[in-house]
């Protein structure tokens, strides 16, 4: 969780996103930001994130991102 928050802070500096639950739906994370996030997440957690995974439900909150990473690690 901490690592994901750090990566989020790199992509979207200056925002507290720890309790956000609509990161994509509210427009905080646009497609550019999602791709930047994916590049860092893939690197950090050594997972393969494919276009099928790039749906709002997987990126709307830190918890959702964490759940996706866990799923992909399995």
């Amino acid at each position, binding site marked *: 969780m901490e690592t994901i928050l750090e990566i989020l802070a790199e992509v*979207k500096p*200056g925002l507290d996103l720890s309790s956000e639950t609509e990161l994509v739906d509210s427009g905080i994370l646009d*497609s550019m930001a999602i*791709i*930047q996030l994916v590049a860092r997440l893939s*690197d950090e957690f050594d997972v393969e*994130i494919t276009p*099928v995974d790039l749906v709002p439900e997987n990126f709307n909150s830190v918890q959702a991102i964490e759940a996706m990473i866990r799923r992909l690690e399995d």
Partner: protein
Amino acid sequence: MTYDSYLFFAAYALIVLGIYLLFPLKYRWTVLLGAGALFCGFLNGPVALWVLACAGFAYVSARHLTTLQDRFAKEKKDLSKDERKALKARYTRRKKWTAAGGIVGALSILLVLKYCNFFIGQINPLLSLFGVTEGIPFLSLALPMGISYYTLQAIGYIIDTYRGVCRAEKNFFKLLLFVSFFPQMTEGPIARYGQLAPQLTEGHRYSNENFTGGVTLILWGFFKKIVISDRASFMASEVFDNSASYGTFALITAAVLYTVQLYTDFSGCIDIMSGTARMFGIRLPENFRQPFFSHSVGEFWRRWHISLGTWFKDYVFYSVSLSAPFMKLSKAASAKLNKFLAALLPSSCALLIVWLGTGLWHGADMKYVVYGLYYFLIMFLGSLVDPLGAKAAQKWGFDRKKGVFGALAVARTILLVIIGMIMFRAGSLEEFANYLWGIVSRVNYGELTGGVLLCLGTDTPDFIVIGAGAVMMLIVGIMKERGTDVLQTVAKGPIYIKWSVMLGLIAVILVFGAYGPNYGPVDNIYAQF
């Protein structure tokens, strides 16, 4: 589209609906298929041929993709992890070739018919540099209406099958219906297979709510198109076609009017098409979501022509960004740049490809390439400075989307969009530059006091009608932004309210529509793409 053809379309849709309801539920989709085939005939004979070819490529490719998927699922059982990995790599390669074959096939029709002469025009000057005086002759090819829409829809289907998002349709005619559903053939919206195909084939019963909801949406679309767009078109054309004769204020007014024209033309047509589909109980994807309330250009494009934007995002931007070369670029950038720039660079390269594609999708002309680059540059620069804005907002405790800052952000977005619209409307890049120069250099205050603005080819009442129409749209837009869809609330309301609104809209269209000797019917701008 002429007014006769609007009436024709409405009558056609009603007759098709009547026949649709006469058929047993299970076979109702065949009526829609027949209606699509007949509609192709009305549009232009060869359209049917291209639709058929496009569906053919999608069908063969997707069927093979699903077969490969099934074979892989069967063969991977009882294998070790490494063996499974190797098998997956083998099947992924085969799937990639299969999908590429289908995509190239479908795309080649579009490339030849739409872009052939554009590329010849780019190659010939290069040939002349090498002494080849007789360049490649230009081809005389007619661009079938709507080809850019159904081709993208078919390609989306192939990619979805490749990704395993959906399974291939076994019945060719059902797939053909997905590619040729008549309300969306000329201007979209570009739908996804999983979203639209089940609705098309399942068969719907008549529903009062769907019928009145559909009719209200159609009338609202006609209102936007006939009352506002065609009237604004007449005034904008007067200035754009004689821009050298006008000064700053007339040029700005015409640019605003053209923006209103394009929005009401395209969104009005989409309302007509979505309303028609709704009468059959079919929901088409949303294509506009109050775009002029956007706080940034990026947000504007997430609210304007949504189905095209999401198509490029899902099938081009994500595919390119997550491809092996881009992931390598990302890693290389991480090693050499700071974290922010390292993350921004690869996604910006992918964004550039998307915007070149989006520009060219709008037309085979260098003007559209620059149009795409214009939006790419704005978004790229926006991404660069966005962190500074976020930090400033945090430091001084203001919300960038509310109050004065929010209003300024919306105004800035509208200004940038209007500049883009001038480029879109101008005949060439030179005309665009001259138009902008005219705005800057020909300040003539006499235009404000001498009544020039009120008689741009028409007269004061036209401005009043456009102004009143725009206010109506604004109110409906604000309410929708706040969660109330006025049109759907009306459709669900008591019978006297919905009929009053429908009859009221008919009366407004008949009384205030841009008919008569001063006007001519205006073609739907987005139908030519």
